[in-house]
């Protein structure tokens, strides 16, 4: 599983961080950091929730 974020769409509201804190982090500079670009399968449900709840549809998953 590979995480792709469209940073032109991302609005740094950290919803994804709420869903999958081990994968996404919005830091105090208000930018989104992807902590793991290829997280393990155990992260899939959390990542899928992040994909569904990202208000700008910025996250997609390959594989």
């Amino acid at each position: 599983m590979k995480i792709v974020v469209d940073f032109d769409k991302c609005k740094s509201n950290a919803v994804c961080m709420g869903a999958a804190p081990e994968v996404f982090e919005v830091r105090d500079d208000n930018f989104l950091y992807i902590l793991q670009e290829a997280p393990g399968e155990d992260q899939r449900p959390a990542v899928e929730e992040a994909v569904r709840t990202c208000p700008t549809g910025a996250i997609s998953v390959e594989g």
Partner: protein
Amino acid sequence: MDHIVVVGASLAGLRAVETLRREGFAGRLTLVGAERHEPYDRPPLSKDYLAGTADRAAIALRKDGFDDLDVVLRLGETAHSLDVDARTVGISDSTVAFDGLLIATGAHPRTLPTQPALDGVHTLRTVEDADAISKWIDGGARLCVIGAGFIGAEVAATARGKGREVTVLEALPQPMVRGVGPVIGAVLARLHRAHGVDLRLGVGVQSIAGEGRVERVHLVDGSVVACDVVLVAIGALPSTDWLTDSGLTVDNGVVCDAALRAAPGIVAAGDVCRWPNAAFDDELMRIEHWTNAAEQGVHAARTLLAGESAEPFVTVPFVWSDQYDVKIQSAGRFSADDRMEVVSGSTDDDRFVAIFERAGRVSGVLGFSQPRRVMQYRRFIADSASFADALAFAAENP
């Protein structure tokens, strides 16, 4: 289950359809929506779309079309009745049988009892509303917003961004004072005034008047606001008229059980749904925010498929609002009489976090341009953590 009908083709309804297919539902699927359009996103209607920086394509909720969902789209059609026993729903002039029904008819704007049908008087819920308002704003109209809630405040901010003259009228002594309390209400008031909004608080609207088109708003105190366009933004009501004789319990929304079931084989999701939220002592909640509609759409679909073994929907409500260059976010369920503590930054600036306490627990968090912290405190709320724990975290993470 052979045929599932989803009524309401917006965020909650679409997420439900996507979930049903993803989780293996192979029967017939029908999505009914009163609007002519394929599902689109509403939050940009008061922000980027109104400003003109996002277009129609950018706000489509489904960019890759509907083919792979194998769903019958009945757009521009309205459900007008439901027979729970016969398991049929009346759509336009047809009667459609279902095995499972998902109600996602959302909400519609509340209007003033005295609201005249004058040209230039608007509410904002649909893309047509946004198009009409943006035409006025782009044409240089002076805007008068009635109601300083999220939508009113955002439209005011967008119109100021275009240099328009904006007056905002609010009946209460501070914007959103019932939700966020007087301190943050005052911060919001300061924000709008700093951006040139003529914000009038504690005022009542007497009437909206004009010859053929709106020209002015009369206030109870006798003063008059001259304007070319009026936005009435005084809240929304759940769209449940079509369910009045259905036998479902309708009371400020479709009343559901913890798993979002309104009756056997009938579920609800989104702005129309009222359900007991175990995260807040089973308080019956109806939430009018994007994240909730997205999550409930998924959950209600799962409940339909799971039958008896359905799980409860438990959530800490979350909402964001973009006003000027400030990203306002809040999570939880708090009211003005909760104790408030600023745990990061200062309310003298437009960058801070405040948390709210009720009965020793963290009931809510609100931040200005602090998304990371808001999400961290949202977790304390979800975990029913003590307020003391949150303060200890705050001491280490200013």
